[in-house]
């Protein structure tokens, strides 16, 4: 527990050395959801349920951030995952990654601040003769444990170790979500993937029920760094850590209904993880196109928006015939964008919510002409989202539904 300050130092060093993308967005938003807050709420909720097991709030540890632990056998792809998702490393470059020798801590200041700990696979933390790990320091405040299994390798040992880990954790930290990533499935056929998933699921559930544990919070995801599945899986993991997710989803659903969007996502821009979507069925294809659209916008922003123009330029633009400060010449201080696809003229729109979040939606065919009305509606929802993050600060979340929408006259 006393190691907290040292950890903080590590964390800082790690973030500064990691390849980070220039922030596309300049404003510091009041809506940034402070993870400490979220964590505090989670802790208090837990305390209500089972008082004793909550970590001691006075310990220095608790000022930390919710943590995702990445564990699994060596060479299963943990470091590749964290590099691709959190550091934008192109998947092809992960071949050059060295094996991780010690716990790699990454701190991410995104809409939620969280830490990702990448564990070296060769260390068995429960049975290490040389060194005893401080279990509470590792597992005390984690949001989710992500266990990575290499689907292209013999996974029996990995499953066995996962079982031991779950059994250990279940005793002391029953609230930890355990997310199993059945990884490297890109090279496998669809049928084979499902076979593996079924096999792994059965092996784990059998073992757990033998030990008398029913309904352990274990979830399975098929992932690969070569497509969007890894981002989708992380989205699901992160969404479980968000308080009042239902409220967010209701707002998006309402927006979709009013503006006749096909699908809307609330993206975390830096990681391309979506933290909420509307209640229409999951659809990998729309996630992919929306996520790639965020990429396009990020790239354009980096190339054309990340350098400062000269004072002369600004003076000329603010002079006659405009005679207005630039800030007043624009309609919206946040980034907004639209793209019309050639087939059936189906538009995609993006609207920045705050420094970290962006709303991306696929619209119905031919609704590009209605953009002004849609923008009005989106403005209202964005304001609602901002309020939402503001409100979650206090413990009381307003009971009212999502903010009312102006009637767009789209029908």
């Amino acid at each position: 527990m006393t190691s907290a300050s040292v950890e903080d130092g590590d964390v800082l060093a790690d973030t500064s050395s990691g390849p980070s993308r220039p922030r596309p967005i300049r404003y510091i938003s009041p809506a940034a959801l402070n993870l400490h807050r979220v964590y505090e709420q989670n802790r208090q909720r837990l305390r209500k349920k089972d008082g004793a097991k909550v970590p001691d709030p006075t310990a220095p540890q608790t000022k930390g951030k919710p943590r995702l632990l990445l564990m699994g056998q060596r060479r299963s792809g943990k470091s590749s995952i964290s590099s691709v998702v959190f550091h934008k490393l192109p998947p092809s470059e992960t071949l050059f990654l060295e094996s991780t020798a010690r716990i790699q801590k990454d701190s991410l200041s995104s809409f939620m601040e969280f830490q990702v700990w990448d564990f070296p696979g060769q260390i068995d933390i429960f049975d290490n003769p040389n060194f005893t790990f401080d279990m509470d320091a590792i597992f005390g405040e984690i949001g989710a444990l992500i266990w990575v299994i290499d689907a292209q390798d013999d996974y029996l040992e990995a499953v066995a170790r996962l079982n031991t880990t779950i059994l250990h954790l279940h005793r002391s930290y029953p609230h930890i979500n355990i997310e199993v990533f059945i990884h490297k499935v890109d090279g496998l056929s669809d049928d084979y993937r499902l076979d593996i998933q079924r096999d792994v699921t059965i092996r784990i559930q059998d073992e757990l029920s033998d030990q008398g544990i029913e309904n352990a919070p274990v979830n399975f995801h098929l992932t690969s760094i070569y497509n969007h599945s890894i981002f989708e899986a992380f989205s699901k993991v992160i969404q479980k850590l968000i308080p009042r997710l239902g409220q967010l989803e209701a707002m998006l659903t309402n927006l979709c209904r009013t503006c006749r969007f096909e699908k809307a996502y609330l993206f975390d821009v830096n990681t391309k993880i979506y933290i909420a979507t509307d209640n229409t069925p999951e659809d990998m294809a729309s996630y992919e196109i929306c996520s790639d659209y965020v990429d396009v916008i990020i790239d354009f922003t980096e190339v054309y928006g990340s350098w400062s123009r000269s004072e002369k330029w600004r003076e000329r633009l603010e002079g006659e015939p405009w005679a207005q400060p630039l800030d007043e010449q624009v309609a919206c201080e946040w980034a907004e964008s639209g793209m019309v696809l050639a087939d059936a003229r189906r538009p995609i729109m993006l609207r920045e919510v705050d420094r970290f979040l962006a709303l991306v939606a696929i619209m119905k065919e031919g609704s590009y002409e209605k953009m002004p009305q849609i923008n009005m509606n989106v403005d209202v929802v964005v304001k609602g989202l901002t309020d939402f993050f503001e409100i979650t600060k206090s413990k009381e979340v307003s009971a009212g539904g999502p903010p009312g929408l102006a009637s767009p006259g789209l029908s």
Partner: protein
Amino acid sequence: MGASPAVAGVDPTSPSAAHAQLKKVKKQKVLLMGKSGSGKSSMRSIIFSNYLARDTRRLGATIDIDLSHVKFLGNLTLNLWDCGGQEAFMENYLSQQRAHVFSNVGVLIYVFDIESRDIERDLATYVNIISALVQYSRDAKVFVLIHKMDLIQPLMREEVFEHRAALVRRKTSEAVAIVHKQKPEQGSSGQQQQQQQQQPTSSPSPSSSTQLEPPISLQLFATSIWDQSLYKAWASIIHDLVPNLSVIETQLASLGLAIDADEILLFERTSFLVVSRWTSAEGEGNPYGDRFERMSNILKSWKHTCSKYTGTPRNAEQFSDFEYKMGATFSMFATKFTTNTYILVCMPPGEARFNSAKLNVAAARSWFKFLDGPVVSAQQVGGSGPGATMGVPSSYGADGAAGTHEN
């Protein structure tokens, strides 16, 4: 990238000369050569057939010569000779088919595999090819692509490339020198000297070298299909081939000034290579020197995402309009421009400015009609006199179509 072409002196007959040039379809023979497995067909598929980098694994070996005609901008046709690189074929090109393969070549693109184990042998083949090329098409431009650079650790790339580039340059000069020695009647010593004086200025190479430039136009690029470096190389290659380049450039410039843009890029429709561009004085401050190939890369992978989503063919048109307003920092839009081109405009923020620029770009389409091919341009040109070229509204200021482009 290559220097903008010199505008020949403006004489009274120049507009009609420019128009005469617009009418004919230019054909260019482009040879794509290199050792078997070096990635020739892969890069061709990515640039011209919209393959994704990872899809090129499916491509088999090219047998003999794979001929394809790529229509570029309507008035330029690339005759792309993708030459299978296995040794038996190579020998065949150099012996029996020598005249057939190497005559009338506009551009030779030679691909080296950086990972190749037998560099000496690669270079020996290269020297033979260069000799044959100098013999039959002495005006051909040579582009050497040091390919698969992604396999080299990022920190080492520049060093490895420089080393290999110096080697290739030396070999090229040697090959040319040998040809000239063998055939003294073809290149008298006076001519040769003149050539050697001229060449260093007319063939800008990405990296400076203390060595004497080889007396043929040679440019080297480090490329990889996994990043934008490929687009940089190919944009340079086609940049020199596009007819009427000076017309395009002057018209883009007057458009840019009229709408108060910071930067305008003109893309070819299928390959999304940057055909031409214009940047304002302010836009020159952009620290991203590689932004043009980067835009190609971004838009092309975006096109691919769209085609996956909509289920339309890879080569089909994927989006028609795009706009992006980044608060009070900048605005940009991309739109389908002429039949064969897309235009991307980056400009200062402001709603009024943005909307009028969009309207003006739509109005300026007629200036660029000639990009769509000889038929359209012939009609267009026939109707307008030398004074009011191509029906440009006079309010847009001086039209720069008066310059001709020697080609």
